[in-house]
């Protein structure tokens, strides 16, 4: 079980006054009714919940600034929230915290095709950013599977990735600038043309800071011309090891497809039962997608076929139509949903060096037997970002604890193999207490000093990312200091 620190009693005691002050600051935007705040109790890590003190939904940067200054002066912690799809508990509130949600901030502010950029309010959903430039022949590259729901501000806070990041990179590689509201209410523009400001790359450290350095209210994003076309192939193998070796061989041959997705047999079977995509029943499969004109696609696929043939594939299925392409992606896209049918699941996202794939998969298999819990693997193979899904039964006493312990062991395995705890979902509360597996005290101290510079009182999303005992002295400093205005 993941622990949260006890709420600040002095804040709870002031509850009514705080809500009133928020209402005075932003009439019509404050929610504190218990029935309505329930929707904000958790994010997609739904095993953990807590009602916030209040929720406020501002519409402009100026309003966010006003709210932040108020919370700062009242010494009330703030949890920023986009769409609440975090899988790490990043946007889960605490009882003493005000949620500042960006769901009303969805405007497109500027589209400059000549400069290949779009500027949006940070509550806008990922998919609708691409939607706004689609007619101009452009798209926004990072495409998390949650892209229909998740917001750009959340993407920036988590530095989210997607299926196509092998070629296009993750959020940080496609972010040119942000408007950031600091905890004290001050507003700052970071980044610039090419994502470059004139000094330190503060934009680079804000991206991925999990809502702990400031609230992003506006973002300037790089947009790319849409490729002429894209085509996936499906390649089935007898074992995970062979599939892994084929991935390495493709990359070694100098081919960087836009995506290389991997599914193991438990995952293939589950998705077949659920979505009936017509996948072969085999040890592991790859979906490799290439882009370009018909001639370019043909040229790349010929090379990929030559390489795959060396690994005796059970099947090499080349899509010849839109419909066949859709069917090849269908199973991959419904994999999480299919797992949901099998039971409750925990989705991990540790990354490993691709060269360690066989060894880590074997290790996960061993752990699965030891814990008596099944696990399915579906992941971005080109970049080593794994997504083991551990199936458990939330109604069975002790099963969640066991699943969490199993998950922690998998992540330890990833770190030991030279990888990391999380490749795209973020630390949040979920992996907070495992940080010490990957980082020495001095490594975390350096990160926390950056937060000290942005948020000296540790009011912004304070109980996340760093193990509670590691951040304790900083978080508790605030409790010993009286509020300015209260």
């Amino acid at each position: 079980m993941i622990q949260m620190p006890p709420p600040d009693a002095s804040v709870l005691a002031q509850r009514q006054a705080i809500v009133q002050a928020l209402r005075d600051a932003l009439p019509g935007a404050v929610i504190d009714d218990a029935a309505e705040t329930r929707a904000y109790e958790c994010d997609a890590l739904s095993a953990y919940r807590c009602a916030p003190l209040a929720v406020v939904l501002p519409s402009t940067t100026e309003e966010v600034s006003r709210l932040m200054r108020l919370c700062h002066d009242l010494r009330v912690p703030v949890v920023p929230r986009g769409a609440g799809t975090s899988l790490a508990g990043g946007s889960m509130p605490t009882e003493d915290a005000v949620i500042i949600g960006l769901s009303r901030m969805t405007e497109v502010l500027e589209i400059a095709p000549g400069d290949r950029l779009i500027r949006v309010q940070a509550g806008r959903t990922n998919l609708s950013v691409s939607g706004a430039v689609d007619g101009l022949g452009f798209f926004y590259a990072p495409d998390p599977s949650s892209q229909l729901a998740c917001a750009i501000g959340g993407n920036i806070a988590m530095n989210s990735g997607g299926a196509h990041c092998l070629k296009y990179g993750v959020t940080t590689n496609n972010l040119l600038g942000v408007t950031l509201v600091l905890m004290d209410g001050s507003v700052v523009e970071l980044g610039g043309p090419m994502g470059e400001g004139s000094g330190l790359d503060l934009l680079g450290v804000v991206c991925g800071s999990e809502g702990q350095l400031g609230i992003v209210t506006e973002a300037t994003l790089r947009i790319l011309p849409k490729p002429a076309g894209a085509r996936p192939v499906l390649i089935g193998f007898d074992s995970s090891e062979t599939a892994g070796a084929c991935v390495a061989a493709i990359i070694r041959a100098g081919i960087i497809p836009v995506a290389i997705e991997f599914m193991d047999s438990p995952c293939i079977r589950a998705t077949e039962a659920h979505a009936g995509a017509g996948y072969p029943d085999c040890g592991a499969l790859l979906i490799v997608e290439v882009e370009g004109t018909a001639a370019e696609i043909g040229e790349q696929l010929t090379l990929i076929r030559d390489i795959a043939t060396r690994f005796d594939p059970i099947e090499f299925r080349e899509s010849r139509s839109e419909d066949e392409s859709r069917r090849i992606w269908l199973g991959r896209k419904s994999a999480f949903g299919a797992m949901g049918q099998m039971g409750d699941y925990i989705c991990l996202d540790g990354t490993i060096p691709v060269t360690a794939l066989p060894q880590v998969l074997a290790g996960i298999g061993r752990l699965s037997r030891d814990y008596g819990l099944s696990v399915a693997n579906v992941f971005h193979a080109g970049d080593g970002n794994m997504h083991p899904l551990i199936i458990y039964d939330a109604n069975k006493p002790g099963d969640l604890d066991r699943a969490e312990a199993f998950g922690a062991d998998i992540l330890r395995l990833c770190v030991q193999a030279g990888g990391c705890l999380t490749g795209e979902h973020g630390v949040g509360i979920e992996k907070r207490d495992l940080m010490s597996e990957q980082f020495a005290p001095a490594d975390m101290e350096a990160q926390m000093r950056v937060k000290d510079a942005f948020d000296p009182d540790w009011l912004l999303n304070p109980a996340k990312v760093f193990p509670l005992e590691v951040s304790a002295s900083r978080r508790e400093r605030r409790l010993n200091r009286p509020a300015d205005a209260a």
Partner: protein
Amino acid sequence: MRPETEGQLAELVRDAAAPLSIIGGGTRLWPGEGQGERLDMTGLAGVTLYEPEALTLVVRAGTALEDVRQVLAAEGQMLAFEPWGRQGSTIGGVAAANASGPRRVQAGAARDALIGVRFVNGQGDVVRNGGRVMKNVTGYDLVKLMAGSRGQLGALTEVSLRTAPIPPVAATLALADLDAAAAIPALASALGGPFDVSGAAWLPGHGALIRLEGLAASVKARVADLTARLSVFGTVSEGDPDAWSLLRPAALSHETWRIVCRPGEAATLLAHLPAPSSLDWGGALIHVDLPVDCFPELPPFSGHARRISGAEPLVVPAPDPITARLERDVKSRLDPRGIFAGAA
């Protein structure tokens, strides 16, 4: 001072009583840099790990850029961000300068290829961030913060980089008749279509230059399509493939300025400046030589201009007060004693 291990370096920093200047090859210091006692990083050299099939290179910061190039080329790979350097430039200097060449428009900057760092902060503590995998959101991304920090936050001892395959074929198209301002819409048109452009620049005597790279049939097809598209801007011819290596301000004049702007702002800025020595990144990067202390009044624009040679450091416009305060605070927290004085 020339430490040969990270441990020695940490001890040196801990014992330092006065500011140190971190120097890699010393091949491109900015005005104001190199003032304190020199901390020579070239003793920390050598490849720690190279896995071509994982596109990963881990290398000590003092390793010569040229050595890195050779190690990668032997496996058909390269640094996609195309850093520039001279005899002696180090990979740590490249990372600390975020030095990025023409391919930035396609493959990103040094900061985008940098996936892990080890550095010694101002208190002599060794700090690790990132790692050797390309997808990693564990904790804050201090890797980006260190990229381009020019030795102000700490001394890099080791960097991990994402490598890329060397494309088998490259083609350069030129619109030789275009002046710098006229080149910008042509470059924007190329970058705005599905051509996977890997270089979009302008050079005096060469005109607008556009590079396409990849597999043979693909490059051929894109060259044909792009030539057709660009013909409205002027005569499209085969460009000099060596022109890409001329894009740097190799010999700095008394005052060389580096201007970063939106391409859409470049033409207006150019109207206020003498002819530039180069444009890169589709017009987002302008290099121009000016007489001493003659930087003109420019209309407001969204980027900045920096004097990269000359007596005193100067950035126009000056950073806003809140950004300046944040930068100062980050610096003073990672280097409380001001050991890494760095440039202003």
